[in-house]
C-alpha cells in the first residue's frame, strides 16, 4: 500500500499535518494508536504564554519572533512566525467548517481559567470559554458563582474557588460555590458520581433536562456577574450550548474543561478527524507502527502491528507520536529514546538532570524539553545520519518546554503545518520538472 504521505500519530500536530497534505491533494494516511492527548486538553490553544524569565506574554506573535534571537533551537525559531500564523489560520478555518469555531482577542493572549481556578495564558478559545483580559482579568467581575452538579467528580468547585482567590486580581471578588442536585435536573437513572462529562452532556442535551438546568443555574447565579460551570454541555454535533444558556439566564457563563474526558479537547479532536475524512484522508485507528525500513537515508516503508508483512510505503513520513505520555518518547535507566525508529534524541544521560528535586515547585521539569533532535526543516537523524523524507512535529520534538512556556498548542500546529508545507513543496517541485 502506497501513500504520498503517512502521518504517525493522530493528535493535534499529526492531524494538522494530515489535513494540510490531504487538502493539497496528496494521498494521505494517519496511523493512530488509541485516542490522542487532546482528550486531556483544555480545548483552548496556547501559542506562547510566558517569557523565559517567567513573565506573562501579552502579545504572542512578536514574542515568538523574538525567540529566534535568544533560542535558535526552539521549534518556533525553525518554523518562523509567518508559518505559525498561516498554520493557525488554516486550523481555525477547518474547525470553523467542522462546526467548532475558535476565536481570539485580536493579536493578544487572554487568560483561560482551569478547573482548579488557576489562570493560564492562551490565544484561541471556544465559544463558552470566557476569555479574561491579561491586564485586568477581574475587570467588571465582582461576584462569581462556581456551580457543579452534585456528585460529578471531575470538577471540584471548592478547589476552583480556592485557586481563583489566590490570584491577586480576584482578591476583592466574592466567589461562592454551589451545587445543583441531579434530581433537580431529572438525572436519576444512575449515580451522578458515576457520570463523566460526556454522559452528562448527552443527558443534559434533552430539551426537558436542558430547561431544568437553565432554571437551576438561573437560581444559582443569583446576582452574580459570572457563572463558572464545568464543560458538560454541548449539542449532539459537539457544539457548545453555553452561548444559548448565557442568553437565557442573562448572565455571563464560562465553561472550564473538567478532568478527562475533556469535552472541549474532544471537540477539536473530532472536528479535525471529520475534516480529514471529508478531504479523503485515510485514518487508521487502533494500529501501532512497530518498525521502519530505511534505505540510503530515507524511510522507505513502515510496518505496523496489523501489517507486519504488508508494509505501508510513502514518499514522506511525519512523526507526530507525542511525548512521554503518548509513548512517543520513553525513558530508560540512563537515556531517553524514541522507541519506534530509534531516532537521535537530545537529552543528557545523567538522569539526575532530568527532573528538579521537587515534584511541584512551580518550575517545569527539564525532561519535558527533551525529544527528537531535528534540523531547521524538522528532519531527524538516526545514528547521526539525516533522514531526508521524514519530519518530526509536535511534542516529540526537542528544544521547547510546553509547560513552562505555555506553547504546546502553537508548536503542534506550527510544526505540523510546516512539515506538510515542505512535503507539498517537494511535490510541486516534482510536478514542475
Amino acid at each position, binding site marked *: 500500500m502506497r501513500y504520498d504521505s503517512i502521518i504517525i500519530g493522530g493528535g493535534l500536530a499529526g492531524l494538522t499535518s494530515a489535513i494540510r497534505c490531504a487538502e493539497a491533494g496528496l494521498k494521505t494516511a494517519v496511523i493512530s494508536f*488509541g485516542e490522542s492527548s487532546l482528550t486531556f486538553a483544555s480545548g483552548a490553544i496556547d501559542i506562547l504564554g510566558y517569557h523565559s524569565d517567567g513573565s506573562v506574554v501579552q502579545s504572542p506573535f512578536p514574542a515568538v519572533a523574538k525567540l529566534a534571537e535568544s533560542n535558535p533551537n526552539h521549534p518556533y525559531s525553525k518554523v518562523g512566525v509567518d508559518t505559525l500564523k498561516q498554520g493557525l489560520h488554516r486550523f481555525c478555518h477547518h474547525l470553523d467548517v467542522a462546526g467548532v469555531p475558535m476565536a481570539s482577542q485580536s493579536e493578544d493572549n487572554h487568560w483561560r481559567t482551569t478547573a482548579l481556578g488557576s489562570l493560564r495564558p492562551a490565544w484561541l478559545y471556544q465559544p463558552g470559554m470566557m476569555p479574561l483580559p491579561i491586564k485586568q482579568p477581574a475587570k467588571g467581575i465582582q461576584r462569581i458563582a462556581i456551580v457543579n452538579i452534585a456528585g460529578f467528580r471531575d470538577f471540584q468547585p471548592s478547589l476552583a474557588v480556592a485557586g481563583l482567590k489566590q490570584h491577586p486580581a480576584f482578591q476583592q471578588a466574592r466567589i461562592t460555590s454551589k451545587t445543583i442536585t441531579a434530581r433537580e435536573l431529572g438525572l436519576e437513572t*444512575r449515580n451522578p458520581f458515576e457520570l*463523566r462529562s460526556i*454522559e452528562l452532556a*448527552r443527558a443534559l442535551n434533552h430539551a426537558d433536562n436542558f430547561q431544568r438546568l437553565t432554571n437551576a443555574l438561573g437560581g444559582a447565579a443569583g446576582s452574580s456577574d459570572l457563572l463558572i460551570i464545568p464543560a458538560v454541555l454541548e449539542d449532539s454535533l459537539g457544539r457548545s450550548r453555553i452561548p444559548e444558556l448565557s442568553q437565557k439566564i442573562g448572565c455571563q457563563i464560562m465553561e472550564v474543561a473538567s478532568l*478527562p474526558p475533556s469535552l472541549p479537547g474532544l471537540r477539536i479532536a473530532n472536528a479535525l478527524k471529520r475534516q480529514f475524512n471529508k478531504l479523503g484522508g485515510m485514518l487508521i485507528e*487502533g494500529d501501532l507502527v512497530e518498525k521502519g525500513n530505511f534505505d540510503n537515508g530515507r524511510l522507505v516503508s513502515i510496518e505496523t502491528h496489523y501489517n*507486519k508483512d*504488508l508494509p505501508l510505503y510513502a514518499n514522506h513520513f511525519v512523526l507526530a507520536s507525542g511525548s512521554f505520555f503518548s509513548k512517543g518518547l520513553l525513558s530508560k535507566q540512563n537515556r531517553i529514546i524514541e522507541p519506534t525508529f530509534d531516532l537521535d534524541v537530545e537529552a543528557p544521560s545523567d538522569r539526575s538532570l532530568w527532573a528538579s528535586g521537587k515534584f511541584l515547585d512551580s518550575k517545569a521539569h527539564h525532561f519535558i524539553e527533551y525529544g527528537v533532535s531535528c534540523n531547521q526543516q524538522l528532519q531527524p537523524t538516526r545514528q547521526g545520519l539525516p533522514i531526508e523524507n521524514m519530519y518530526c512535529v509536535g511534542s516529540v520534538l526537542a528544544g521547547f518546554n510546553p509547560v513552562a512556556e505555555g506553547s504546546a498548542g502553537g508548536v503542534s500546529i506550527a510544526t505540523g503545518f510546516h512539515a506538510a508545507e515542505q512535503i507539498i513543496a517537494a511535490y510541486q517541485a516534482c510536478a514542475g520538472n
Partner: protein
Amino acid sequence: MLPNKLLLHIKPAPVIKMLSLTDTTFDNCIKCTVCTTRCPVAEARPDYPGPKQAGPDGERFRIKSPGLYDDALKYCTNCKRCEVACPSNVHIGTIIQKAKARHDGFKQGPREFMLSHTDLMGTLSSTTAPIVNVVTAMKPVKKLLDKTLGVDERRTLPKYTFQTFRKWFGKHAGNQERFDRKITYFHGCYTNYNVPAVGKDLVAVLNAINIGVRLTAKEKCCGVPLIANGFLKKARKNADLNMTQFAKSLDAGSEAVISSSSSCAMTLRDEYPDMLDVDNSAFKDQIQFVSRFLIKEFASGNKPEMKPLNLKVAYHSPCHLIRMGGVVHTVELMREIPGLELTLLDQNCCGLSGTYGFKKENYDTSQKIANKMLEQIKTTEADYIITDCESCKMQVEMNTDHKVLHPVTLIAMALV
C-alpha cells in the same frame, strides 16, 4: 528425594484462597474514559455505565465479590470500539464478555439458542428455504416469534438460500485443483446459508489472479454469535474443530485461510486466543480477511485485469473490521477499481451487532445507534452501499432503499 511411600503421607499445603488474577490487563487502564466517549451503547442508553465502568473499573469490584456484578453489562454489543479508542491497550470488550460469562450474565433461552446456532439454523432452514422464507416474512409468524421468543417483529429476518454455497462449490471444486497456488476459504454461515453470491464472487476473483479455492472438509460457525450469547463451551468446540481443519488444509498446501466476513475473521484470528483460550499462534498470521489477502496480492503485482466500473459507492466500515485494523485494506482494494467513485461514510456503528438487535428488548437501542449511520446513508447519492459485514448489510437494507454489496462483489463486477 523422599521415598514414594512417604510422599503419600505429606498433606498438600492448605489452599489459600487467592484472587485468580491470570489476566490483569485491566490494570493498564489509566481512567481517561475515552472508551466511554466512543461507546455507541452508552450514547444510546444512559443506563449502561459505559465500557470503563463495565470493564476495567467493574473488574476490580467483581474479583472481590461476585455480588458486585452489574446486570447492565448485558447491554454491551461487543462492538470493540472501546478497544480501538483505548490508548493503553486494554481489551475492554473482552473483559466485559468474560465477566458476563463468569457471572451468568447471559440470558440463554430458546431464543438465544436459535439466534446463535447459525449453522444449525442454516442447515434446517436452507433445505426448506422457499417455505421458510415465505413463512418468516409473514406478519402473524413474526408476531408469534415476537410474543413467544422475543425476536422483535419489526426486524426483517434473514432469507435463506435453497442451494448452500457448499453445495454449489461441490460442483466446482474439481476446477480449482488446476491452480498451483491455493487458499482455504472459510465461508461462514451467512455466505453458506444466506448469500452464497459473495462466496461465488470470491472464487471468481481469486481464480482471476490464478489462485484456487478450497474448503475445509468440515466447517463450523466461527463462534461470534455463540460468544455474544454466552455459549462459550459450544464456541470452544467449534473453534477446536475449525483449528484442526485449518491445520490440515495448511499442511495440504493452502497458503492462507480467508474469510469474507469481517466478524468471522476477527473471531478466528483474535477471539479464539483472547476470548476462548484456543491457541491459534501456529498459523494466526495466515488467517486473513479477504481484503487483506487481495490487497497484498495486488500490491505484489498479482492483479486481475479490470474494466472501469462507472459507479458511485459509499463505504461503511464495520466495527469488527476497524478493530482488526482492516478498513485500510478494503478501502485500498476498492481504490484499485478503475472508474469507481468512492466516498467513505463516517465510522458509525450500525447498531445491529449480529443477534443483539434481533432481541425485542434491544430493538430500540439498536435502531437508536443506527440513526447516525442511516441519516448519512439516506442523503447519500450512491448506487450501492459497500460493507464487509453481513450484520451491517442487514441493518442498512432493512432501514433504507439502498442495496448493499460486499467489496469482493465489486471487484468481481469489474473483472474483464
